[in-house]
């Protein structure tokens, strides 16, 4: 794409999730310039081209038990653009900034209803207070990191969504990229808007 309609460039960092490619597809379907990048890629290499946002995918690593996730720490420390962490990406973000991640008492797989705890968050613009999302997790964030606020919860998981407004870092325990999540595409649209700045 060229001309005055600037194309937004958002890369998907692959942490080995089953739905990494779905994140790529959702962004591509929304006309974002996107590609899947291994999580071992140094930030400097990522930034060879101007990027406007990153999605940290989910993955099989147990963030409740392990402390590293490729180069995700480097991205979180130095990024000057919004980052959306999903599932393991979300858990890593929480842990990295001083929150806690533990094995879930009741892991969630499949359909779950979430409730928004705030009504003004830009990532959830046009998403109703209660909606259906799909989940697939063994661990969860139990303590919020400093400067993050809780945005959504479910019956069995206290932190379904969290955000840091200043740096525009967001973490979602559920999966907005799958077809069955009711407002998943809307959440991606909102994230793209944040990346457009």
């Amino acid at each position, binding site marked *: 794409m060229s001309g005055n309609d600037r194309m937004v460039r958002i890369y998907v960092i692959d*942490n080995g999730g*089953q739905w990494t490619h779905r994140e790529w597809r959702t962004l*591509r*379907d929304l006309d974002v310039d996107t590609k899947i990048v291994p999580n071992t890629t140094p930030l400097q290499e990522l930034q060879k081209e101007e990027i406007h946002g990153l999605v940290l995918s989910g993955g099989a690593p147990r963030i409740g038990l392990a402390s590293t996730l490729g180069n995700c720490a480097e991205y979180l420390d130095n990024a000057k653009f919004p980052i959306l962490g999903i599932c393991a990406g979300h858990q890593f973000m929480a842990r990295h900034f001083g929150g806690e991640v533990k094995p879930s008492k009741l892991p969630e*797989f*499949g*359909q779950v209803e979430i409730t928004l705890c705030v009504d003004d968050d830009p990532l959830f613009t046009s998403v109703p207070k209660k909606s259906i999302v799909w989940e697939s997790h063994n661990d969860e964030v139990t303590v919020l990191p400093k400067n993050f606020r809780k945005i959504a919860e479910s019956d069995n998981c206290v932190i379904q969504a969290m955000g840091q407004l200043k740096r525009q870092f967001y973490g979602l325990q559920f999966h907005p990229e799958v*077809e069955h999540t009711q407002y998943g595409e809307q959440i991606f649209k909102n994230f793209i808007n944040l990346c457009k700045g």
Partner: protein
Amino acid sequence: MFHAEKFIEKTISNLQREIKGKALIAFSGGVDSTVCAALVNTAIGKQLIAVHVDTGYMRKNEPEQVQRMMKDLGLNYRYISASEDYYQALKGIEEPEKKRKIIGEKFIRIFEQVAREEHISYLVQGTIAPDWIESGGGLRDTIKSHHNVGGLPEHMTLKLVEPLRDLYKDEVRKVARALQLSVSERQPFPGPGLAIRIIGEATPERTELVREACAIVEKEIERASEQGLMERPWQYFAVLIPIKTVGVHGDKRAYGNTIAIRAVQSVDAMTCHYSTIPHDVLDAISTKITNTLKEKVNRIVYDVTNKPPGTVEWE
């Protein structure tokens, strides 16, 4: 957005550049391999040979249907009947991953044989995104080894060509519609076929049972969908669970196997919701299966698991 026309144009020109000489396509008769065959056929014409392997784990009347499809598409094709080989290779095998790997390797060995006879160096497969995603590798956990990815042997002589690798089923269907292929709405069927719809050993006898049960499930659900009683599911079939339970048949004790009915709604197979089949339809399926398979099957159950946590197929 995904544009089928653009994709077709780009893929055909890529294929013309990539394939130098003759190619073989693994043709199952499903949407993916049919779309692939049509694209490669346009790109290289008679340099392409479609090979269909009858593994013995195909659905009822499928071998005949697939041969007709290959003819109708104007493909240069070979039909290989290998049921006995497959039954032999799967003798005593119960572990699902082992079944998938044996089947995957056998496919390749057969293709290699044809390739040697015909001096072919390229193998075209209709691999789509969920196949390689679920097969794992690198950081990704193996959910199941799809026969065309995780089931491939380490050493193979053919060069792989997979033009649909980044597509999901709904996108492949769009391409099929753009190419006006009648197969566009056909329900997915796994490469290892009925072998993974039999829990435990996939013997010829058990295969006959699940083949008949699958045919009944398909027929009843298709009829109900056409009559507007339910939405046509994304995929619908029967699974044989070789667990015996007690029943009563005409005042006599019966002790037969169990069949599970599985039907799901999905767009891309990455998440699925189980289908709500009306009770009358379940009733018809249950009665038909037990009356047809008599002493072999006397219990029918209905799978109400979503993906996740389940997967569509049981193995």
